[in-house]
C-alpha cells in the first residue's frame, strides 16, 4: 500500500472567498426570528477568514433545529443522527487531518442523547470545532424541557414543572478535560465571531456554547444577558490577562472566595485577573460556576490550553510504525507465520 495520503491537501484559494461563497442554494427553514439565523450569518461571515477552500471544510450535525445548519452552507456536510455527530466527525477528522471539521449541535443533541460522544471527543482532543447551540429547550419536538432547562420549568412534558437538575455545559466540558471552552451569544455578532476565531485557531477540540434564543418555545431565555438595561449587570466579558470587572462602567469585580471559588466582590476590591492559558482547569471551572455564586454570566474564552491532539498522535504513530516496519506487503502478511508447501504431484505443472 502506498505511503502517500489518499488525497493531497488542497492548496489555499487564489482569491479569498466571501460570505456569499459559503451560502448554499437551500431555503433556510428555521422559524422567523430564531436565533439560528444570526449564528448562520456570523458563521458564513467568518468562514472566509479561515483562508481555506470550501471543499476542505466539513460541517457535521446531529438532529434538532440547529442540526439543519450544514444544509445552508456550501461546504461538504452531513446531517447525521441524534447525538452522534461528534463520533462521526471524529472518524472523519482522524482519517482526514487535512480537513477543517466542524460539529453543529444543540443542548438536547449534545448533552442528552449524545452526552457520551461529546465528553469522549473532548477528552481525546480530536481536531473538531463543536458549536453547541444552547436554547434550553427541545425545539424540533415542539417544546419539551432539555438537559439545560432550569429546574421547575413548565413545558409540555412537565406541566407540573421539571424535576431535573440542569447541566452547565461549560462545567461539563471542563470536567471532560476540554482544552478549549468558550461561551458566546447568538445576538452579539462581533463577540460570536471573535470566539469562532479563537476556536478555529485552537489545535484540538474546541467547545463553543452559543446561547441561542428559541423564540417559539423558550423566548427570552437569555434576555437578561442581551437587553441594554440589564446586560452590563449580568454579563462578564472574559479577556485573557484582564482583571474581571463588569457592571455599568465596570464598577463590579470578581474576587476569590475563601471557600476556593469565585464570587462577586465590592467595587474597590482587586479583581482577579483572567488566565485562560493556565494548565490548571480549576480557575476556569470556578468561573463557570460564577452565576451559581450570585455573580454574572461569563462569556468569552474560559480556557484555551494546548495539549497533543488525538488525530495528530494517530498520524504520528502511523508514521512511526511505517518508518520502523516499512509499508505493509499483503503477500508477506498472508504468507507469514508457519507455512508449509504442498508440492504439485510429480509430472504436473507447478502453479
Amino acid at each position, binding site marked *: *500500500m*502506498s505511503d502517500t*495520503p*489518499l*488525497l493531497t*491537501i*488542497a492548496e489555499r484559494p487564489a482569491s479569498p472567498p466571501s460570505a456569499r461563497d459559503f451560502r*448554499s442554494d*437551500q431555503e433556510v427553514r428555521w422559524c422567523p426570528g430564531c436565533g439560528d439565523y444570526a449564528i448562520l450569518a456570523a458563521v458564513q461571515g467568518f468562514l472566509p477568514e479561515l483562508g481555506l*477552500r*470550501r*471543499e*476542505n*471544510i*466539513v460541517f*457535521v450535525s446531529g*438532529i434538532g433545529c440547529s442540526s439543519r445548519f450544514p*444544509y445552508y452552507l*456550501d461546504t*461538504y*456536510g*452531513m*446531517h*447525521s*443522527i441524534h447525538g*452522534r455527530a461528534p*463520533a*462521526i*466527525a*471524529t*472518524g*472523519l477528522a*482522524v*482519517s*482526514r487531518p*487535512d*480537513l477543517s471539521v466542524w460539529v453543529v449541535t444543540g443542548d438536547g443533541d449534545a448533552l442528552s442523547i449524545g452526552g457520551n*460522544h461529546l465528553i*469522549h471527543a473532548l477528552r481525546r482532543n480530536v481536531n473538531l470545532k463543536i458549536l453547541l447551540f444552547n436554547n434550553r429547550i427541545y425545539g424540533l419536538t415542539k417544546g419539551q424541557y432539555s438537559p439545560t432547562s432550569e429546574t421547575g420549568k413548565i413545558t409540555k412534558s412537565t406541566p407540573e414543572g421539571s424535576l431535573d437538575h440542569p447541566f452547565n455545559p461549560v462545567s461539563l466540558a471542563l470536567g471532560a478535560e476540554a482544552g478549549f471552552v468558550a461561551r458566546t451569544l447568538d445576538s452579539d455578532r462581533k463577540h460570536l465571531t471573535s470566539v469562532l476565531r479563537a476556536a478555529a485557531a485552537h489545535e484540538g477540540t474546541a467547545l463553543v456554547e452559543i446561547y441561542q434564543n428559541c423564540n417559539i418555545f423558550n423566548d427570552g431565555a437569555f434576555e437578561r444577558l442581551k437587553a441594554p438595561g440589564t446586560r452590563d449587570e449580568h454579563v462578564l466579558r472574559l479577556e485573557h490577562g484582564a482583571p474581571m470587572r463588569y457592571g455599568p462602567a465596570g464598577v463590579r469585580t470578581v474576587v476569590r472566595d475563601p471557600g476556593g471559588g469565585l464570587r462577586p466582590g465590592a467595587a474597590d476590591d482587586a479583581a482577579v485577573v483572567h488566565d485562560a492559558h493556565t494548565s490548571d482547569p480549576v480557575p476556569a471551572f470556578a468561573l463557570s460556576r460564577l452565576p451559581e455564586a450570585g455573580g454574572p454570566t461569563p462569556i468569552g474564552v474560559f480556557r484555551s490550553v494546548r495539549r497533543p491532539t488525538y488525530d495528530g498522535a*494517530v498520524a504520528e*504513530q*502511523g508514521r512511526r*510504525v511505517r518508518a*520502523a516496519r*516499512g*509499508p*505493509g506487503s*499483503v*503477500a508477506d*502478511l*498472508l504468507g507469514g*507465520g*508457519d*507455512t*508449509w*508447501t*504442498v508440492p*504439485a*504431484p510429480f509430472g504436473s505443472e507447478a*502453479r
Partner: protein
Amino acid sequence: MSQRVTSVSRVVIRFAGDSGDGMQLVGDRFTAQSTLFGNDVSTFPDFPAEIRAPGGTLPGVSAFQIQFADHSVSTPGDAADVLVAMNPAALRANLGGLPRGADVIVDTDEFTGRNLVKAGYPAGVSPLADGSLAGYRVHAVALTALTVGALRSFDLPRRDAERGRNMFALGLLSWMYHRPTEATVAFLREKFARRPELAAANVAAFTAGWNYGETTESFGGGYRVASAPREPGRYRTITGNRALAYGLIAAADRAGLPLFLGSYPITPASDILHELSRQRHFGVTTFQAEDEIAGIGAALGASFGGSLGVTTTSGPGLALKSETIGLAVSLELPLVIVDVQRGGPSTGLPTKTEQSDLLQALYGRNGESPVPVLAASSPGDCFGAAVEAVRIAVTYRTPVVLLSDGYLANGSEPWRVPEVDELPVIAPAFATGPNAVDADGTPCFQPYLRDPDTLARPWAVPGTPGLEHRVGGLEKADRTGEISYDAANHDHMVRTRRAKVDRIARGLPPLVVDDPGGRAEVLVLGWGSTAGPIAAACTEVRAAGGAVARAHLRHLDPFPADLGELLGRYRRVLVPEMNLGQLAGLLRARYPVDVESLTQVRGMPFKVAELRTAIEKVAADV
C-alpha cells in the same frame, strides 16, 4: 524402539484444564505441529466467559478440541478419542461426551481430596479409584511431579515449575502422535525471548514429556496419522478472526483505500480489533471508541472522507449500531459491519456459538432499510468473505453486514495462502467532477445520480473541488439529493435502494452443488459455519450408500439468482441452522418450496452424527 506403531486415519483429542492451565496454547501448538506434518485439521476452542472462574471448579474448565486426519476433515469431531484432563473438574466436565474405549490421560497430582470436592465429587470419592472409569484406557500420570522433577536444574519458584506441566503434556501427546517438534521449540524461544530461562524451562518440560512417552510402556509405540492429500500450494493454519482481519486488509489494499476500523471490544469479535491494531503500517487506523455506536459512527465518518470504514462487533453490539446502519443506507456510503455471532438474546452466551443474528442483520432497522448480508462458512473462508463484503460495499456504495460466529472466530484450519493477484480488483472510482448540467446548462454535481448498471451513487469525498454537497438521514430527492418530503419521490427512493441491493445478485457466480452421483433427491442447504458439519455428514451418508446433495449460501441478501431454481430440483430440502429456523422461514416466504428446518441452539456446532441421522431420515422418506 521395538514398540509397535499403530496407524490410524483420524484422531480427535480434547485438551481440558483450568482456565489458567494454558490449554488454548497447548491446542494451538498441537494444531500447528499437525498442519506442518501435513494432516488436515479442524479445531474448536471451548472456553468459559469468565476470565478466571474459581480455580478447579467446573465453570472454570477451558478446553480445546482438535481433529486431525490423513484425509479432509471439516469439523473438530463429535467426540474425543483422547481426553487430556489436567484436573478433576476437567475430567468431570468432559466425561459425559466421551465414548467408552477412549484414552484418558490425567494428572494424578491434581486428584487431591480438596480438588475432588471443588470439582463436585462426593468427599472421599476419586474417579481414579471408584471404578467409574472402567471401559476407558486410563493413563494416570504424575504430570506435575514429573514436570517439577524435569525442571529441578532451573532456579524456578515451585509454582512456575508446576506451570510447565502443560508443555509436558504437549510433549507427551506430540510423542504419541509423532508430531514434528521444531516449530514449537522455536515458538517457545520467541515467546519468552525476554526471559530466556523461562524459554529454556518450557522447552525442557516439553522435551521431558516427549521422553516420558518414549520410555514408558503405557502408550505402546504411539500412533501414526499419515498426511492428507491436498491441492498444491502454500498453506498456513488460520483462525476465523485473523483470516477476517487479513481479508479486510487485502481488500482495502486492492481498492487502494485506507482502512479505518471503529470498534468497541466485545467477545468474540475483539481479536479482529487486536489483529488490525498490529497492522498500522498497511495504512490501517484502529479507533477504540467509547461505545458501539461511536465505533460505527466513526467508521461511517471515515467512509464519508474516502476511507474504507469498518466496524466489528457481536450481536448485542449490532443491536446498538442499528440506527447508524440505517443512516449508512440513506447516505449510500461503503461500510462493512462485521457481526461475530454468539448465543443470545441479550448478553446470552458470550463465548458460545450461534447463528441467531441472521434476521437482525437483515431486518433489524426502522423503515425499508435493505443491507446486503454475507456469511463466512469456515475459518479460512472468513478471508474470502471479507474481501467479498468490501467488494460489494465499495462497488454498490452500501453498508454490508458480514456474519461470522464464535465457532469460526476461534476455530482454525489449514488455509491455502492466496496469491494477491487472485483477489478481485475493487475500484472506488471516486467522483472527480460534475456529472450533470443545471436547468441553465451549467455543469453541476448530483450526488444521487446513479450508475445505470449498479445503481450506485457517486462517492465524492471532501477535498474534491466543485463537488461540495450535503447528505443526511432525511429522505432525499432523486438525483439532486436535496431534502424531499414528496410522496412519489419517497416511493421511488425506497424501491431504488431495494433494487440496488437486488442488483448485486447479477454479479454473483452460480451456486455450487455438491452431488457426486448426480441422483440425489434430498438437498441439504446451509449457510455460515454449519458448512463443515454438513459436508462431513453428507460424506458419511454417501459412504453408507446414500445419495444427498449439498449447497451452501454465502449471500443471504440478495440470494443468488439461481437459488429458487435449485430448490425446485429436489424432492426434499433440509436446512440445518444453529437458531430456530431463520433461513428456513425466509426460504418458505420467498420460494414455493416446503423446506424442512433442523435446528439446535446449544452453543456448539452440529454434531456430524446428528446431521447424518437427520439426513438419512429425510432421505428414507422420499
